[in-house]
């Protein structure tokens, strides 16, 4: 990792990051245009995904058909947790599509071309696919949010709560993207890690759609301190619903979420770079 020694290096690093981000969006836009050629397909896909994810939401209500609370959380509160998780995850699905198809990229030998370009390999891989159809999940998440508030007559929006939610969703996106990245990095060692990656991504989303305290202590610690997905889901929603956090953690922990998310991302990226070096040594 480069040590930022002086202002000039600092400036250049910022410039590089900015131009990388600009390039990333340009590449994504190419994908969108590529896929947008099939408009009818696009709308059908978004609609279908909306319905699929709505079924997942319905499952939440199924639980509450028999029980009135889940460890102190009522149906509206769990619905809200589900919604926030879903939105953040939906964004990560959309932007992280390139990471999801990485096994194919490697298998087809296209990673060599990536290394032949003067651009960071990660940016190229991350932008190699973009799933506009995941808008279905994001839309469903937003709808779920409104349904949740309908079940919470005592809930009032404040500026801080809105901020917490936005920060939470943004952090959640980065955190889930980092998990996608870890999954993609596995490809440098194993041939087809797809199912394992799905456990971490879709499984993670599933688990975090329910209050963290229903899980045992070990799981709670994992989601808070090892793979801190809770910072994009349980932590912001607890703040919004004025619920306390486990392990005596402060209530406004949500405002540390961006830092946690970025730190986790940088760790994942370091492992990715290690994987790239391994690829360059073994050629596969």
């Amino acid at each position: 990792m480069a040590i930022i020694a002086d202002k000039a290096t600092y400036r250049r690093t910022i410039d590089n990051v900015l131009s990388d981000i600009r390039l990333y969006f340009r590449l994504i836009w190419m994908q969108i245009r590529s896929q947008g050629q099939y408009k009818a397909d696009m709308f059908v896909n978004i609609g279908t995904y909306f319905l699929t994810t709505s079924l997942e939401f319905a499952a939440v209500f199924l639980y509450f058909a028999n029980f009135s609370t889940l460890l102190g959380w009522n149906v509206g509160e769990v619905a809200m947790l589900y919604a926030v998780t879903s939105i953040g995850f939906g964004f990560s699905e959309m932007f992280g599509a390139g990471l999801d198809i990485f096994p194919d990229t490697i298998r087809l030998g296209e990673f060599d071309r990536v290394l032949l370009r003067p651009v960071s390999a990660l940016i190229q891989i991350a932008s190699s696919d973009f799933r506009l159809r995941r808008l279905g999940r994001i839309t469903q998440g937003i709808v779920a949010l409104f349904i949740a508030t309908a079940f919470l007559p005592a809930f009032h929006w404040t500026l801080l709560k809105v901020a917490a939610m936005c920060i939470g969703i943004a952090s959640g996106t980065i955190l889930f993207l980092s998990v996608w990245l870890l999954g993609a990095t596995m490809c440098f060692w194993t041939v087809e890690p797809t199912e394992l990656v799905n456990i971490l991504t879709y499984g993670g989303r599933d688990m975090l759609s329910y209050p963290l305290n229903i899980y045992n202590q070990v799981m709670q610690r994992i989601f808070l301190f090892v793979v801190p997905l809770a910072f994009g889901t349980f932590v912001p929603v607890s703040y919004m619903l004025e619920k306390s956090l486990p392990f005596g953690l402060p209530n406004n922990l949500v405002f540390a979420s961006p830092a946690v998310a970025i730190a986790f991302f940088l760790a994942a990226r370091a492992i990715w770079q290690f994987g790239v070096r391994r690829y360059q040594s073994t050629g596969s």
Partner: protein
Amino acid sequence: MNMIEVSGLGKTFRVAKRRPGLLGGLRSIVDPEIKRVEAVHDLSLNIEAGEMIGLIGPNGAGKSTTIKMLTGILVPSKGHMRVAGFDPVRQRRELAQRIGVVFGQRTQLWWDLPLIDSLRLLRHLYRVPEERFAANFAQLRSMLALDEFIETPVRQLSLGQRMRGDLAAALLHDPALLYLDEPTIGLDVVAKARIREILQQINAERGVTVLLTTHDMDDIEMLCPRMVIIDHGRKLYDGAVEAIRERFGGDRALVATLDAAELAKLPHDARGWPMLDTLPDGVTLAQVEEPRLWLGFKRDAIPAHELVAWLGARYRLHDVTFQEPEIEDVIRRIYEQNLLLSVA
């Protein structure tokens, strides 16, 4: 100025060998048998700026491995490299800015979008300033005759068109060095000639150093004054194409099936070969497997039909075919004669 400086390059792969049988397969997971495969051995090469070099060798010779190391895709096991003034291992991205690579069998263009979109995107990927892009693009457009298909999605292009598109893509950022991997493979005769003309132009007018990997001897003969032969990870030959042609290649072979009985009646020499009438100038008896004879003849020494006529006038011919020199044969002959020529 040296564009490529390579000395003592080596690459050894560690390949896990599967043990036979079911139990062996399971055992391979926990305790794999590692076989060391030396893909490249002690390779040294010096290429000056502006040269056009042909890289030839049979499949599995180590050509791709060498190119991958030169471009920074693969890290060598040992040796020292300097390409365009950069260390490919530690300065991969800086080097990428100065090189262009075209794979004959795989495109770097975006499949679903028009060619022009790919080129515009590559402009951003390579951070080419607006004016330079405009100037380059105009020049490439006319040199490669892209106008007819610049708006067509790449998946709808013919192979020859796609190759021209890939060349444009590789040259857009003014690379000093161009790697071409089988650029004429699969192309028809007209398209091949066209691509060769273009490559000639690129090298002569733009001064781009070109390293061309190919199986096609004609590519080499028409484009490259100098060639490098690689086999079994080693450099076998590095020098002028003419020398190779004089010694091993360039000879076509007339394979004639004579009448067995007639051949048996002829006196045979010490080798056991039939002694034929004095052969015309430039024709040699290369191989005998009675009743078949291989007559090697230089392209300009005697036209093929005249040789057939000459032979047919003296002996009964049952069958006649022609053989072009195979690169594998050239290499085999070099190997057999233990030739390791290096022309500095």
